[in-house]
């Protein structure tokens, strides 16, 4: 069932009468009346996460174009396989195709909701599987402006939230929320500001603030397409680093849902088979 989300126009405790009437008319539960910005933020995150549940598995291709301040470009290509795990974080497998010197290198991640993720790296030249530390969330992913934490789906439990406001974004209306990492050490950011449309809870923009609370990066997301009549996936992402002037364009293609992927493809044996 699709839910309609309505949030107060102004944060705070004072609601104007028409707003109350509207909420009542839409049949919102009564506790929303007294919801704090933190509760509203959590609610949006929880609902957005729930909307993404049940996809089973998917595969896709990623192409990255890395640009420095002078406009010099460098390309990355990889394939991604993701398996949904009931009650825990997703399992994912990334296989690199470009640059060619790292071709065949693969990264297996078993994400967890509470404890640290498990990660194994496959090095094809040595045919070696190496268990690696997953605490490097803030490091650059393949020299791009994306970090590992920018690319992994945000688990609801790993943040606290604060609803800020509603504002128009393109033809849509977006909620603007802040999220703060629960484990401060595990994140490279002090906070993120997220724009999500009220219709489908798709994320359109994220601003990242570093540990000194300086505006470090901005992620713009677009070309959303719906799969299996339910799941929205972005076609384009653009990350700009305001400190260095560098940027990365990430294009997603060839999304395929509910493929023949099984849990076994996300084991260490499956990792050695990835190419």
């Amino acid at each position, binding site marked *: 069932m699709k839910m309609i989300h309505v949030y107060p126009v102004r944060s705070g405790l004072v609601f104007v009468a028409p707003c109350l009437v509207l909420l009542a008319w839409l049949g919102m539960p009564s506790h929303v009346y007294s919801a704090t910005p933190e509760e509203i933020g959590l609610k949006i995150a929880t609902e957005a996460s729930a909307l993404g549940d049940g996809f089973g598995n998917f595969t896709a291709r990623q192409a990255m174009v*890395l640009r*420095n301040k002078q406009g010099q470009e*460098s*390309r990355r290509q990889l394939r991604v396989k993701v398996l949904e795990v009931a009650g825990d974080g997703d399992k994912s497998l990334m296989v690199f195709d*470009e*640059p*060619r*010197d*790292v*071709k*065949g290198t693969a990264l297996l991640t078993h994400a967890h909701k509470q*404890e*640290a993720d*498990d990660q194994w790296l496959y090095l094809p030249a*040595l*045919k*070696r*599987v*190496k*268990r*690696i*530390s*997953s*605490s*490097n969330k*803030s*490091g*650059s992913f*393949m*020299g791009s402006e994306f970090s590992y934490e920018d690319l992994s789906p945000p688990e609801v439990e790993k943040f606290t939230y604060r609803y800020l406001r509603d504002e128009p974004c393109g033809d849509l209306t977006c909620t603007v929320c802040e999220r703060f990492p629960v484990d401060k050490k595990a994140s*490279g950011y002090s906070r993120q500001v997220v724009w999500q449309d009220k219709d489908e809870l798709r994320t359109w923009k994220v601003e990242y603030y570093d540990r000194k609370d300086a505006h470090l990066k901005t992620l713009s997301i677009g070309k959303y397409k719906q799969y299996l009549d339910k799941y929205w996936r972005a076609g384009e992402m653009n990350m700009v680093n305001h400190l260095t002037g560098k940027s990365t364009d990430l294009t997603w293609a060839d999304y395929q849902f509910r493929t023949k992927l*099984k849990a*076994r493809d996300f*084991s*260490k*044996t*499956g990792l050695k*088979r990835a*190419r």
Partner: protein
Amino acid sequence: MPRRTVRYLLARSAIWLVALVFAVDAHAEMEFAAWELSGRVSLEGRYFPRTGIDPRHQSSHTTGFVVEPKLYVEDVEGRSATVVPFFRYDSADSVRTHWDLREAYVLLFGELGESEWEVRLGADRVFWGVAESQHLVDIVNQIDFLEHPNGEVKLGQPMVHVTWTADWGVLEFFGLPYHRQRVYPGQGGRLRFAGLVDTDRVEYESGAEEWHPDFAARYSHSFGPLDIGLSAFNGTSREASLVCMPPACKLTGVNDPSNVWIPYYAQIRQFGLDAQLTLDAWLFKFEAMHRSGDRNAFGREREYGEAYGAAAAGAGGFDDLVGAYRKEEYVAAVVGGEYTFYSVFGSTADVGLLAEWNYDERGRQALPRRQPMTLDNDFFVGTHLSFNDVQSTEITAAFVTDASRATRTMGVEFDRRLFDQWSLHLESSMILSMDPADLQYVGRRDSFFEFHLEYSF
């Protein structure tokens, strides 16, 4: 060498025949879903600042190239075939100009109730273990000693490799029908004994020689942050005992360039354990193994001298010489860790620090295993710098010191992508000091600098 090459070709043909039967059998529904040609071509050079042990034949530098393409074919069911031939040309050493079939296998897999089976049939490379300073438990493949003395490069090993993956872990069986001999540098090559090793004159403990069926098994599993592996191997040793037999070899030892040694491969049994605990930015590593069956002449100099004298007088043969060797049984271990500082000083660079201790029960009677160094009581410290830039610039430095002898070595490597498909590798492998009591004392002048200019496709 030629005789061996022919035999190996035969062995390979047999394996391919079996693989082909599978392929033809499956041909009815076989539909190629994907195929791909990738690989690398590398222009390489090495420079040795000091004159070698055999200056009449050895030179101070060598150049050459490597070609290593990879062909991969996959059908709609996910079954695949992989072929990775390898060729090196070396300007200084005709023996180092060599080729190998690194990989040539068919991969099949499927469900087995709740678990999964996988079969790899053909020549392949297998890696076991967690440590960085040496790969102690790793034994399935012979190392390609001609490529690099660090023992990281391996020869393709013909095998039937069956994997059973289930909730309780991964169980693997290896049937290894053919033994790959260790390869040693030729007369023009550096990084060798003063004398040469005659691989055509090879001797085996088993009457079946290189066709002795070797077996290996491994169980591995992850328990939360802990990854463990238990392994066993029974068969032909991957490390040769070098035997000095008259008249080609005199009792003048490894420093005499005129000596020609005979490699001897014993039947051994090895049990191994490898474990890694991953906690935050810490990796704690442990490897241990128990091995029996290898032959060692250390401490048997008198017996060996007698057997040698008898052989020289025509009263004894090769078996009597090997009979004078001690049959070994020993334990060896590596223990250590790795810690990484991420995004140091607000930059994007990571700095990893590594430290390991290598132990060998045989102490001063230890023989080199997969590297020319003996690691009996040796500390290894290293650092790994990843700049995480667009060019994937990395610097690795490692220092190894023998705690009970005056042997110290240091290696530094630099890697950087130049353009999308071109990358550069620079390396220096330095012997800082060498204890005269060490077997590798003969190679004390073999510090070298190396570069690779590599094109990947």
